[in-house]
C-alpha cells in the first residue's frame, strides 16, 4: 500500500538507503572496526612496538612475560611481544580473505548469473555442482586437501576457495533467475540487446547489492575459517604470526598464562565482529536477503 500521493515528491532510494545506514550505530561501528583492521594490517611495521618480533626472534628474558608496559599483552613462549604479533596476524587473515573471496566471488557470481539467465543445461550443471559441493563440510574438505597436499597458506586458500564459490553461485543464481524473469530483461532483448549486454548491464547491477553484502559477511567467515584451520596446524608455517596458531600455541600454557590466547582470540573476534556489523548494516541499507 502506498501512502504517498502521486504528485508528491517520492523519496529517492539513495536517501532511504543512507537514512537506514546512518541511523544504524552498529553499522557505523562495524565500518570503523573494518577500517581500523585494514589500516593496522597495512601499517603494521610502523605502529607496533616490536616489528621484528613478527619473525624468528628469541628473547628468553621475557619468556611468558605477563602484560606490562613493555609487552601490553604479554609475551609468548620464546619471549616475543604478543601485541606486535597479533597486529601482524591481521595481515595473514586479510590475505586469506582477499585470496579466497577475490577468486570465489567473481567465479561464483559469474556462474550463478549464467545459470540463472540461460537456464537449461547451464542451470542444471551449475546447480548440480553446487549441490554436490555444499554436501561436503568445508572444514573437512579444507583439512583433507590442505594436509594431503602440504599444509601452507596457499593450499589452505585453494581448499577454501574450492568450496566457497558455491555459496556465491547459489545466491547469485537465485537473484539472477528472478531478475531474468522480469519484463525489463525481455524488453532489453526485444530492443536488440546482446546476451553480454543483458548479463553485464541489466542483471549485474541488480546483483551488486546482494553480492557486496554477502562478501562482507563472508570476510568474517573466512577469517574464522582460516583461524580454525591454523588452530589445527594447517595454516602458515612458523614463525609467521597467525591468529589461529597463536591461540593454539598459547593453549598449552592455559590457564596460568591466559594472556597468550587473549590477544589473538580477541583479535579474531574484533575483525569478524567488524565485518559482521558492516555486512548487517549494508544488508539493512540495501534491503536485500543475502
Amino acid at each position: 500500500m502506498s501512502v504517498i500521493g502521486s504528485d508528491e515528491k517520492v523519496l529517492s532510494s539513495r536517501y532511504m538507503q543512507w537514512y537506514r545506514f546512518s541511523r544504524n550505530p552498529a553499522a557505523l561501528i562495524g565500518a570503523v572496526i573494518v577500517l581500523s583492521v585494514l589500516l593496522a594490517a597495512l601499517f603494521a611495521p610502523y605502529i607496533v612496538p616490536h616489528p621484528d618480533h613478527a619473525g624468528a626472534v628469541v628473547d628468553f628474558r621475557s619468556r611468558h612475560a605477563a602484560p606490562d608496559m613493555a609487552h601490553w599483552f604479554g609475551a609468548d613462549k620464546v619471549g616475543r611481544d604478543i601485541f606486535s604479533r597479533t597486529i601482524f596476524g591481521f595481515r595473514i587473515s586479510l590475505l586469506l580473505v582477499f585470496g579466497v573471496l577475490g577468486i570465489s566471488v567473481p567465479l561464483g557470481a559469474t556462474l550463478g548469473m549464467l545459470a540463472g539467465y540461460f537456464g537449461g543445461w547451464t542451470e542444471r550443471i551449475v546447480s548440480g555442482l553446487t549441490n554436490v559441493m555444499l554436501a561436503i563440510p568445508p572444514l573437512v574438505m579444507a583439512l583433507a586437501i590442505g594436509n594431503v597436499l602440504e599444509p601452507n597458506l596457499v593450499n589452505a586458500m585453494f581448499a577454501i576457495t574450492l568450496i566457497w564459490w558455491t555459496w556465491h553461485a547459489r545466491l547469485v543464481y537465485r537473484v539472477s533467475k528472478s531478475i531474468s524473469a522480469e519484463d525489463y530483461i525481455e524488453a532489453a532483448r526485444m530492443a536488440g540487446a546482446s546476451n553480454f549486454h543483458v548479463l553485464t548491464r541489466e542483471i549485474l547491477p541488480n546483483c551488486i547489492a546482494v553480492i557486496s553484502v554477502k562478501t562482507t559477511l563472508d570476510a568474517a567467515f573466512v577469517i574464522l575459517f582460516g583461524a580454525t584451520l591454523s588452530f589445527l596446524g594447517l595454516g602458515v608455517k612458523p614463525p609467521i604470526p597467525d591468529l589461529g596458531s597463536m591461540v593454539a600455541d598459547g593453549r598449552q600454557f592455559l590457564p596460568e598464562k591466559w594472556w597468550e590466547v587473549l590477544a589473538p582470540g580477541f583479535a579474531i573476534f574484533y575483525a569478524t565482529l567488524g565485518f559482521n556489523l558492516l555486512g548487517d548494516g549494508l544488508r539493512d541499507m540495501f534491503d536485500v536477503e543475502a
Partner: protein
Amino acid sequence: MTHPLLQIFDLNVSFSSYGRSTHVLKDVSLKIEKGERVALIGETGSGKSVTSKSILGTLPDNARIDSGSIRFDGQELFAMNDKEREALKGTAFSIIMQDPLSSFNPVFRIGRHLDDVMYFADKRSGVKSSAKQRMARISDVLRQVQLENPERICAAYPFQLSGGMRQRVLIALALLHRPTLLIADEPGTALDVTTQSEILKLINQLVDEEGLSLLMITHNLGVVRQTADRVYVMRHGEIVEHGPFREIFENPRKDYTKGLIEAIPPLYGDGVVDQPVAETRPIIKLEKVSKSFEVKSGFFGKKAGYPAVKETTLNIAEGEIFGLAGESGSGKTTLARTIMGLLGPTTGRITVATHQHGEGEKVTPLRELTQIVYQNPGTSLNPKRTVSETLSVPLHFVKLPKSEHRTRMVSLLDQVNLPESYLSKYPHELSGGQKQRVAIARALAANPRILVLDEPTSALDVSVQKDVVALLQRLREELGLTYLFISHDLSLMRNFCSHIAIMLKGEIVEQGTPAEVFSNPQHPYTRALIAAIPVMSDAEEEQKPKVSEEERQQFLVQARS
C-alpha cells in the same frame, strides 16, 4: 434523536517513515446511516485504505492519529480501551479483504482461519461453543456465500482454491458474526470481470438480506453505481466532495470528480467513439496456429501438452488497432508472444510482413518489426538504469551513430510528452504514467511497424489511463503503426480498437468491429463478458446483452466448488 451508525469527524492521520512525517488523512469526515450503502472512491494513495484501517483499528505502528473522532453507533472509538475495541472487530463491523491469495496464511487450512476467528469472537462475547457447533455455523455461512461444499472448503489449503472461491471465503469471514457494518476493500479487483461481477452481486444480495450497512472502497466508478447510495470522493487524503451517487455522477461539482468521470470510456450511448476500420492489406497472418506448453507430471516426468492457443486463424490489417480480449489464462498473451517471434508455434504458420515462421522452425524475435509495451511499468524498466541508458539499447541495435543518440532520444521523449531533463532520471524518480511513457519511447526507438500493447493501462490510475490512451492514439496516426492491443478492459477496447477478437481457453470465439460485437454479440461467452462490465449509467446497463442463467453459469465454473 437517532445517531448515524458510523460518523467520522475531522480525522487526521499521519505516517512517519525515514524520519519524515506524511500527513495521510486531512480532516476526513464521513457518515454512514443504518442500512445505508456508501462508497469511498479515489485513486492509489488517496487514503481510502487508511480510512478503513482507522475504523477497524488496524493501522500500522508508524501511523499516528493526530486529531478527530470516530463514532460507531454513538460510541467514541478513540475513547475505548483495547479490549473494548477488540470486541467490536468482526461483530460490530468487519472487513472484506482485498487480495484473496495473500489474505490467508499459506500453511494453514481455510477451516483453521475461520474457526479461530469464530472461536475468539465467541470468547470475547462470552459465548461458549464446541468445535462441532462452530463448524455447523461456519458451514451455514459458507453456504450463504454460495460455496456448496463447506467440508471440502475448510479442509483445503488456500492455494488449492480458485481466486473466486477464496474471495467468497473472505466474505464469509466478514459475515461470521453478523456485523452491522460491512467494509469492502476493493473486493474482486484482482479477479476476472465475470467473477468480480458475481462477487459484487453476492455482496449486494447479502447486504439486502441481512439489512447491513456497507462501506465500499473502490477505484472503479462502475462498481460504485452497482453498490452505493451515497459517494465520497477522496484525493490526497481529503474528501473532495460527497453526495448521493446519482447527483455526483450526473452533476459533479469539483473538477477532479468531473475528470474522474470523464476518464471512464462509455460502453454504449452517444459518447462512444468508433475507430475507422483499416482497409489495407494484412500485415500479420495466422494460419491454424497452435501453441502448447509441456507440463511435466508424475514421478518419471511424463510430459503432457497443455494447449494455450488452439488452431487460431486471423488477419490483422496494417494500421489497425486490433484488440484481443479475454480473461486471465485465455491465451491472449501467448498468442501475442508467438506473433512477436518470442515463442515458436507448435503447429501452424505465422506471417508478419515478409517474415514467416512455422512449425518446428527456429524462431528469432522480430525486433525490427514488433516491439512491446508491458502492463506494469514498474517492472518493465530496469531500476538501475537511467532513461537515457534504457533508450540507448534499441538505438544501438538500429545502428544509429553514437553522435546522433542524444538528438534521437530527445525527439523520442518529445513524442511521448516528456522533457529532455528526464533523460538522466532513474525509474524510481518517475510516476507510473511517466514510466509507461518511457516504456513507449523505448518501444518506438527501433522504428517498429507493429506495437504489441499488453494491457498498457491496467496498472495505472483512471485519470492517467486517459492520457496514455490519447498518446497512443496520436502516435499511431503520426507514425502509421499497427497495434495489437491485449486487454480485459472491454469498455476501453470498445472506444480504442478498430477490430476486436474475444478469446476463451485458447480459441477466438468471436471477432468483428467493436460496434458489431457490442451491439450484437453472437457467442454466449461474449455476452457474459459484456454483461459483467460495470458501467456508469442505467441507460448503458439496459443496452448490455441479456444473459440467461445457464449461459452465465457455463462460464463461471471455477468460482464454484
